[in-house]
């Protein structure tokens, strides 16, 4: 199975959108402030629907918010 992790640019996008607060973003997409904080910190992966909603709030494509970072297996690489 491919190994990897999800990273995101929510903190940056919030900053670029007038320093939008986590609470405001959460309110606009129906999530709590704590859930937004957990997503930002990479400790919770949102549903696809929530991910699309976040992208819609910032008016960007989904790939500009979330990225899939592939982890290469050092044993296979060598």
């Amino acid at each position: 199975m491919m190994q990897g992790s999800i990273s995101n640019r929510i903190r940056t996008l919030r900053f670029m959108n007038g320093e939008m607060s986590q609470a405001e973003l959460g309110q606009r997409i129906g999530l709590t402030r704590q859930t937004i904080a957990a997503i930002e910190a990479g400790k919770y992966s949102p549903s696809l629907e929530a991910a699309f909603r976040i992208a819609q709030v910032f008016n960007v494509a989904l790939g500009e918010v979330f990225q899939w970072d592939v982890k290469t297996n050092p044993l296979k690489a060598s």
Partner: protein
Amino acid sequence: MSYREKIAWLSLIAMAVAYGPYFGFVGRGPGSWEPLPHLHPLGLFAMVSIVRMLILGVGYLYLRLGSPREERQPLDERDRAIEHRSITAAYYVLMAGMILVGCFMPFSSAGWTIVNATIFWIVASEVVHYSVVVASYRVQASS
């Protein structure tokens, strides 16, 4: 700490305060309880349940008044996922306990021993439920 985590802590504390001494007492043995109609153990259990409800009632009130409204939002998808995970874990504990009580204990025990064992496994499953909730919120806490 989120409002739901505080509620989970409150539930854990209420159970520890109420059922801890109860199981400590009944765990020492059957004692000299009258055979029928079992008013003594029933009264003890009723008292414990009232203590638990009082702690929960006062605690809920305190948390509700002390938490800003924005913290008391409806469940979102992460809350529901945590709830689902915790209930699943509690379900397995409850099933294991009920199998033990229902299938094995009738061969070795009777009466209030079986009743208390049933109560114990119900409480144990609740403890697992709220512990998983607390642990999940702790793990996912950003700071």
